[in-house]
């Protein structure tokens, strides 16, 4: 990865490779690999990990490039990153920016105290890229469904990537910003819509998780109940055997064998019943893993080529039709309220008039065929 030219040589000097090459470093008994610590800084916009927490980058070799104090001198040293992606320690920030906006000691860009953020990644170019991408993703949130074909979607992704690259590497910043602004104006409604869709999706995921959790609990409860039931049943069986042995005059071995068989039958019936009620999560997984040998095909609105004889007539909006006069007048509005359309009747009448006009007459069939089988063939061919 190429570093931006304005990142400065100091960056290379102070960053440590993750995994720590300097294990032999003498100044610490603690492991030298970069560590992360949770932060509770307010107004922190750092990168969140999967658990939703933010973690701050932290290394034993940290040194403030401005005042040159390091972790050895100041164990509480904390480096923050400026808007121009330069690091400095908290005390330098306090010293330089408490009295209002001031130039960055490294690149002279005017900075404010509030614009410093904790560092998440070891490499500041990554930090910058993440920030740029997050900003871009906020506006450029179109989805595959928003495009008519794959081609235009790919073009769009390409454009987004171009803009991102420009911003990361500070190429044509003014022009790129203008491009973003233009895009935002043109697509404001769609952006809004996609934001909402995203929210809905997140909500749906959350609901799903909640449901899964409930289901798991439910299953655990069920299993516990099951066990309880089984235990009770066994106890009952045992008592029953004793009772029977007491009252019956039959051979003891036979009585026991008979009760055992009954108990077995009952328990197997129960397991059969529970086997049917498999958990839906399991089923969903098996469903997803189902063979994909038959690909799903896109929907085709009308699959058959149906000849409607539309070239043989044109339906007019209105006809002078005495039979439907009352219907068309519809004084009480019940035709409209009921959804009856007189146009459909006209369409049917006109189409029936032309249907099968040029069908060749039946030939080569004997008289008996016509009486028995023919009516069917006429119907199917119309």
């Amino acid at each position: 990865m190429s570093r931006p030219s304005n990142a400065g040589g100091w960056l290379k000097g102070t960053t440590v490779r993750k995994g720590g090459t300097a294990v032999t470093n003498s100044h610490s008994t603690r492991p030298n690999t970069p560590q992360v610590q949770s932060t509770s800084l307010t107004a922190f916009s750092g990168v969140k990990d999967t658990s939703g927490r933010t973690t701050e980058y932290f290394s034993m070799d940290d040194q403030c490039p401005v005042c040159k104090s390091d972790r050895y001198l100041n164990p509480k040293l904390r480096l923050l990153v400026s808007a121009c992606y330069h690091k400095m320690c908290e005390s330098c920030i306090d010293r330089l920016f408490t009295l209002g906006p001031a130039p960055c000691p490294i690149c002279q860009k005017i900075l404010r105290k509030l614009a410093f953020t904790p560092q998440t990644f070891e490499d500041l170019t990554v930090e910058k890229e993440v920030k740029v991408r997050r900003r871009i993703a906020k506006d450029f949130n179109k989805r595959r469904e928003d495009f008519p074909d794959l081609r235009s979607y790919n073009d769009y992704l390409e454009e987004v990537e171009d803009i991102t690259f420009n911003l990361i590497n500070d190429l044509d910043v003014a022009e790129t910003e203008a491009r973003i602004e233009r895009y935002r104006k043109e697509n404001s409604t769609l952006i809004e819509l996609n934001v909402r869709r995203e929210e809905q999706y997140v909500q749906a995921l959350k609901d799903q998780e909640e449901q899964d959790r409930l289901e798991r609990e439910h299953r655990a409860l069920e299993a516990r109940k099951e066990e309880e039931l089984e235990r009770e049943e066994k106890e009952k069986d045992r008592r029953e055997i004793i009772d029977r042995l007491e009252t019956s005059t039959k051979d003891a071995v036979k009585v026991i064998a008979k009760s055992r068989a009954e108990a077995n039958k009952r328990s197997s019936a129960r397991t059969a019943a529970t086997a049917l009620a498999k958990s839906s999560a399991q089923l969903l997984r098996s469903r997803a893993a189902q063979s994909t040998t038959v690909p799903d095909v896109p929907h085709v609105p009308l699959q058959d080529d149906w000849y409607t004889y539309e070239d043989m007539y044109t339906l007019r909006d209105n006809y002078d039709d005495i039979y439907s006069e009352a219907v068309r007048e519809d004084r009480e509005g019940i035709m409209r309220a009921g959804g009856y359309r007189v146009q459909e009747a006209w369409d049917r009448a006109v189409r029936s008039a032309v249907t099968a006009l040029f069908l060749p007459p039946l030939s080569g069939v004997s008289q008996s065929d016509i009486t028995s089988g023919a009516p069917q063939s006429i119907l199917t061919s119309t």
Partner: protein
Amino acid sequence: MDAVERANAERQKRWVKDQKIGEGTYAVVYRGREASTSKKVAIKKIKVGQFKDGLDMSAVREVKYLRELHHQNIIELMDVFSSKTNLNLVLEFLDSDLEIIIKDRTLVFLPADIKSWMAMTFHGLEFCHRNFILHRDLKPNNLLIAFNGQLKLADFGLARDFADPGYKMTCQVITRWYRPPELLFGCRYYGTGVDIWSVGCIFAELMLRTPYLPGESDMDQLKTVFRALGTPTEEDWPGHTKLPDYVPVGQFPRTPLRDLFTAASGDALSLLSRCLTYEPRRRVSAREALHHPYFTSLPYPTHPSKLPKPVSAQSRPLEEVDGNVQLSASGPGVKAAPPNRLKRKLSSPIDGLRPLARKLDFGQAL
């Protein structure tokens, strides 16, 4: 023997009747096969003798429309023949129906599965409407599923062609939970919108895995509908207060569908709301629905062969054709709209999976 009789005898020979698999009020369904190919079929024997006025209306309707409709999403009527005084319909043999699948809690639906079923339903319905036929009894247990996963519209016992202008149609059609409000208000002039409403209810049921609008009586059905979708205003549905059986059933606020269908995509809800629109003319047509973005957006509809189906459907010979049994049993029952149809018939195979029904089975076996 005249030509007609001879032809009938020939036809009869083509089919072999096996065991009886179900009985409805006006028909008995047998499992059968084609004599030459031993292809499985269902044979529906319609009892003619016991009706004073001749053949039952639903049998006439079924033959009349199924004879003409040939589409991959509509059940195929393969042959009709008579034996003694009975009429026999030879129908395609189908494994299960959508109701069995919805009720089978061991099956998991992906959004793409629902899309696939909806697409097939609309394909079949569009074909009916294109041929000027209203189905008038769409519900999950009339949507049968073939072994290859294809969904097929069945039970044309209540179907009819579009009425000519000014001719009344009956409003006592469609199973209550799937009946649109205009029929509940006693409207006698209606159109394709009635089927679309039913499809909307089925769509919702597929997402919820439980009937969406389960009213306990016709009156309660209206209340249930309004509670779910808000009481319509004159603006939502012009003229509905003039319908013959209109009665105010109370004011309910409109709640967004999103509140109930939390996991559905925006496209799905858009199509659902277009199906469950109060004014029938503003409801989506089957053809428009097929062009709705819901069907073209990702994910693609699941290929029919991969759709979930009851695992044990093949291993339970007696209940396999249950769809067809239901088909014969429900036709006339619905037409009369008996007061208590809240509980659906308990004869579907899914009930066989439940512990209670299992116990009963054991009892009979012993």
